[in-house]
């Protein structure tokens, strides 16, 4: 029983961060229709920005997290403004190729700046685990879970409760009509891309201290983010949240009770099953936005 509970706790913590990655991508991929292969690089950017803020600028840990998110927002906005905006009338494949270029350029840029040797990111939390019965959890991981859930709720509120969110939803339902109603749709595209990238950077900033930071860390993150988006349905924030948690728990239980050698396979088997049985995702709405 303790073992099962521990697996579930591990899975939830992991799933929370998958969800964060998935929400960022579902905004960009699901709503904007940009196959963003560089999503994982914004995750890496968040981790290295935290590292730089902590070790080079000597910032407070929480200030460093905030700075990393701002970094993700700004670089995301610039990427959209410079590379995606001129291609809005182009086919999805053209944009995809450009994003592959961004992915390669960013990853090699990180390699150039930071070198290939992994960096350990310091954090102020105690390393003594909190225990309840047979289940233990490091304080840092608890913080990561809470922060991830906070950001997820924040993103949800932003899209469903604010003017910007309403404009975003209107734009992705029908860009032309939204424009006629006075929505500045080009700004909405930039904002959406920036928010998605900012969320990826937040995931990197939160997970960097839990793990270690290295230039190719984004590859795995991208893979998981795409899985979560497919699982939850394109453009569906609630779906991405649940999809992330499902993937995290499934991988954890698969590794724990089936075989740790096939840990990643378990996640993908679920995705194949979902694609076969419910091709538009677990939580597909009757009509797709976009």
């Amino acid at each position: 029983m303790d073992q099962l509970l521990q697996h579930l706790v591990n899975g939830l913590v992991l799933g929370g961060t998958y969800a964060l990655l998935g929400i960022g991508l579902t905004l960009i991929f699901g709503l904007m229709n940009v196959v963003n292969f560089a999503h994982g690089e914004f995750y890496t950017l968040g981790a290295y920005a935290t590292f730089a803020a902590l070790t080079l600028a000597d910032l407070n840990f929480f200030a460093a997290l905030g700075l990393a998110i701002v970094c993700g927002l700004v670089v995301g906005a610039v990427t959209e403004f410079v590379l995606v905006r001129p291609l809005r009338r182009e086919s999805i494949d053209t944009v995809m190729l450009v994003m592959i270029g961004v992915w390669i350029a960013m990853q090699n840029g990180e390699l150039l700046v930071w070198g290939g040797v992994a960096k350990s990111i310091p954090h102020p939390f105690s390393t003594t685990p909190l225990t309840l019965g047979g289940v233990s959890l490091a304080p840092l991981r608890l913080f990561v879970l809470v922060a991830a859930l906070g950001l997820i709720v924040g993103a949800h509120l932003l899209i469903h409760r604010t003017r910007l969110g309403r404009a975003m939803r209107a734009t992705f339902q029908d860009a032309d009509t939204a424009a006629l109603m006075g929505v500045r749709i080009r700004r909405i595209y930039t904002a959406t891309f920036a928010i998605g990238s900012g969320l990826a950077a937040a995931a990197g900033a939160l997970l960097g201290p839990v793990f270690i930071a290295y230039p190719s860390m984004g590859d795995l993150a991208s893979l998981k983010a795409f899985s979560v988006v497919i699982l939850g349905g394109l453009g569906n924030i609630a779906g991405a949240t649940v999809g992330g948690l499902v993937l995290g728990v499934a991988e954890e239980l698969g590794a724990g009770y089936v075989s740790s050698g096939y840990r990643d396979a378990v996640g993908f088997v679920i995705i194949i099953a979902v694609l076969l049985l419910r091709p538009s995702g677990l939580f597909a709405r009757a009509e797709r936005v976009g």
Partner: protein
Amino acid sequence: MRKRWFLSILTVGVIAAFVGSVVIGLDVARAQAPVRIGVIEPLSGPVAASGNYIRMGAEIARDWLNAKGGVLGRKVELVIEDNKSDPKEAASAAEKLIVRDKVPAIMGAWGSSMTLAAMPKLEEYGVPMVVETSSAASITKRGNPWIFRISPPSEMEAVGLEPYVDKLAIKKADFLAVNTDWGRGSIQAFGDLLKKKGLPVGAAEFMEQSATDMNAQITKIKTTGGDTLFLTTAVEQITLVLKQAQEQRLSRKIVTTGGSSSPTQLIKQAGAAAEGTYHIVFFMPWFPESMPDGKLAKAFVDEWAKRGNPFEGLTEGFRGHDGIVTIAEAVKVAGKDDPKAVRDALWRVNLTGVNGPIHFEKDGPAGKESGQSKPSIFIVQIRDGKVALPEFARK
């Protein structure tokens, strides 16, 4: 008419003379050109730290060789390729070094899966490779006569650990290994050792090389009731496993295998989580005087520090040194930098590197044997935030 003939012959003659002189000139240039040694290491990707340390060690060997006049009166030059911790890249790096750079021998490729991926290229083009790190048994068992390994396969490591099994008071052991040829081979070898000693084995768990969250495996291992955990992977993942084991309060004697644990880096990056762990290493830079050639080991440690290289890299770095001096010695014995001649000469190499004596013996199927040296193996423990010889290993 005649004049024309004469002109044509003259032209052909001039061209022939020109081409001839260029060819001769190239030959002369070749004789003065450096001896180029290919190096394939993971300089980026999940195991980049190790690959970069080996590069630093190889550069020390190169500079020391060149300071003593080089090899065959020619300078030694390293052509270094990054395999990105990826077997596919290792194969194309080998092909590039052989076809484009025309190196007579290669050192590489760190991970067993990377080495195994590069091996068919060696056979295809007939170029020898000195394997400096990889531990999977299959490397020297496949019948590839271009392979010369100076690192110990997991079996040899297990034999080296045998006298300590009783002293470590192992009752029941679990395994956690990276899901590669190295990790799988290591579980096999150490599992056989325990079986031979009549000790039970609990869980045998794997993790992907790029995995960062090993909580599921640790939770599972917690339930087996073992007292020892054999951990086989590179230092980055060892750091993560030790941290996560501490988070889950896993109480085990942890023994890392494969020699890529860099205890000093673990103390730095895993802190208290590394306390009490045991590590099988092939170089003890903390006490170089205890190495087979104490003077050489000391000189290497001093040179490493002088270059500002990080101390924690020494347990990998020495491999780079030993690999390059082995190839340089073979070129010297062969008298030329031709791949086939260097291969034949590798069998006659007899020298002492930082690890100890290097001399190849035949291993693998008859007629197509690979070379395997018998390296020295040591065990150290992290105690009070320092690297020490375990109580039982002290004289």
